[in-house]
């Protein structure tokens, strides 16, 4: 398959375009991952679609110098990455597939530019992670503060432990085996801010802007989200389908890629 790289935004976001189809599938990775997270899923679409993969600024092989802590202090900044990629590649009527926090980032991109997507797929989405009376996001505010503490206290060891394995393998072939070697490659400071921004986000009111058909793929036992949240999204949007997968975990595109491919194909 032909693989093309563009300049500027495409370089900044390490955009990869694979496949020859006329309809574009844009895959957005989740928190702590990069585009390699799609390796078990995206090839299944390359024959019939143009597959566009990218890394958010601060993740994977994106241009770290483009990281602006003010811009990326909210998910809107990450959504801007998507809008800018679509603008540079002149993409419209795209089918966006977002994992985890990318689900809501995709929704915010649609809010910023309502004509870019014609369909959206959410994998393990959550419009709000923090609990509040009447809403079970899954995480207490205190848990989040403690999580940031845990990230801080592992800050030093983390980078020391992880750096050699990444540096020694520029092509990272072993990435084929795991979810988030890339998470570890992420600068701990950026990872911490991304975690904070992700877990502090509240996009429940943005669900109103979901004006295109959408699909939610939700695992049975997910440490970050839940069927309750999938149901919440379903109830607060129009044209949203839910597919519940029996597999456990937060990353069905890695643990059960066949089921994910099947669900996406029948939706699009």
């Amino acid at each position, binding site marked *: 398959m032909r693989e093309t790289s563009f300049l500027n935004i495409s370089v900044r976001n390490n955009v990869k375009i694979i496949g020859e189809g006329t309809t574009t599938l844009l895959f957005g990775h989740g928190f702590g991952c990069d585009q390699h997270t799609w390796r078990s899923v995206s090839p299944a679409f390359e024959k019939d679609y143009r597959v566009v993969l990218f890394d958010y600024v601060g993740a994977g092989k994106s241009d770290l110098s483009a990281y602006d802590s003010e811009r990326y202090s909210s998910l809107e900044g990450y959504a801007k990455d998507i809008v800018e990629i679509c603008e540079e590649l002149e993409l419209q009527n795209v089918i966006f597939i977002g994992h985890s926090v990318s689900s809501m980032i995709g929704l915010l991109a649609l809010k910023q530019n309502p004509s870019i997507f014609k369909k959206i797929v959410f994998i393990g989405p959550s419009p709000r992670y923090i609990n509040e009376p009447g809403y079970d996001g899954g995480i207490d505010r205190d848990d989040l503060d403690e999580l940031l503490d845990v990230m801080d206290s592992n800050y030093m060891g983390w980078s020391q432990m992880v750096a050699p394995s990444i540096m020694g393998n520029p092509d990272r072939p072993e990435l084929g085996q795991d979810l988030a*070697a890339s*998470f570890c490659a992420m600068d701990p400071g950026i990872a911490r801010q991304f975690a904070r921004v992700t877990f502090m986000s509240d996009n429940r009111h943005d669900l109103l802007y979901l004006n295109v058909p959408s699909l939610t793929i939700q695992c049975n036992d997910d440490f970050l989200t839940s069927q309750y949240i999938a149901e919440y999204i379903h109830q607060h949007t129009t044209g949203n389908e839910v597919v519940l997968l029996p597999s456990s975990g937060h990353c069905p595109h890695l643990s059960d890629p066949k089921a994910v491919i099947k669900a996406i194909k029948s939706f699009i």
Partner: protein
Amino acid sequence: MKNKAMNRYLKKDFLYDELLCGFVSFSPDGQILSINKTMASWVGINFQEVQVLNFKSLMTKSSMLYYNMVVDPLLNLKSVVSEISLKFSGSDGSFDALLNAESYKNEQGKLILINATVQKITDRKRYENELLREKRHAEEEKRKYEFLFNSAPNQIWTTDAEGKILTVNERVKDYFGITEVTDVYGLSGIFREDRQKYQTLWRHSLANGTAFQGEIRLQGIANIPEWFMITAEPYSDKDGKIEMWFFSSTNINKQKMLQIASQTEQKISLSNAYKTLADNQERFVSIAMNQSHMIRKPLANILGLVQLLSDEDASPEFKNLLNMLLVSVEELDTMIKQANKTNIPDLNA
């Protein structure tokens, strides 16, 4: 020498269960396969019950999230992870621990089992938290300093003890149109004609450790030299050794140009005043000369006539009167001469 009593404590089962740290074996999804008594007692769950739990469920929620997001993927990537700081739920509140783990894969390369030790670090953690708090405080202070550094209206920069530039604030970057410092001594930013003056002053400050102050022209991106008041103070460490210099420069171009302009104006007006005075003096001298000439002419006549009368025969009384008249006329003449001298100041003196 080993004896019977000792043997009990050296048995492998005993060592495993009573190990001074927790020891857990679990499957990749966290299901506990084996756990020692130390760990079971730390988490405060009955030994039989704990064996069927998920290892991640023994952690606090935040640590479980961190484990899922970071440690799990790491164990897929490499076989050993060490010194991961986590919190576990204990019988009397949560406790901090360090996790060391080793993962094992089957022949197909699939992860099948993880062995982990859990070491309590409650006291050490307290100290670490203290350090962490200090670190955050220091970071906060640094942010404040940077804010101040960049929001100040002046150009501010620092150099090391030898005068090499360390940091510059946004004002400096804006003025010189740079994103980073390439000229470490910053000389290229100083207007050519002022470089020597700057270097002389700066060398003096560097050699003596005394504050620097000078009016120097800088030439920025606009390529027009402008006057700045540049000051620098040395910053010394605890032992009194100069560690760095804090520079600040304020644009005084407007004042300086006004000052230069007003100095020129003053010079012109002063020389005009001198010229007026000289003109006036000349006029005055000429008037005075004319006046004295005009007055002294009739006086000379009187004097001549009095002298003529004195030659005539006359009574001694009359002569005496003439003599007195002569003296008075001469006195008047002297007075006029003197008045001329006194009233015309010698402006060339």
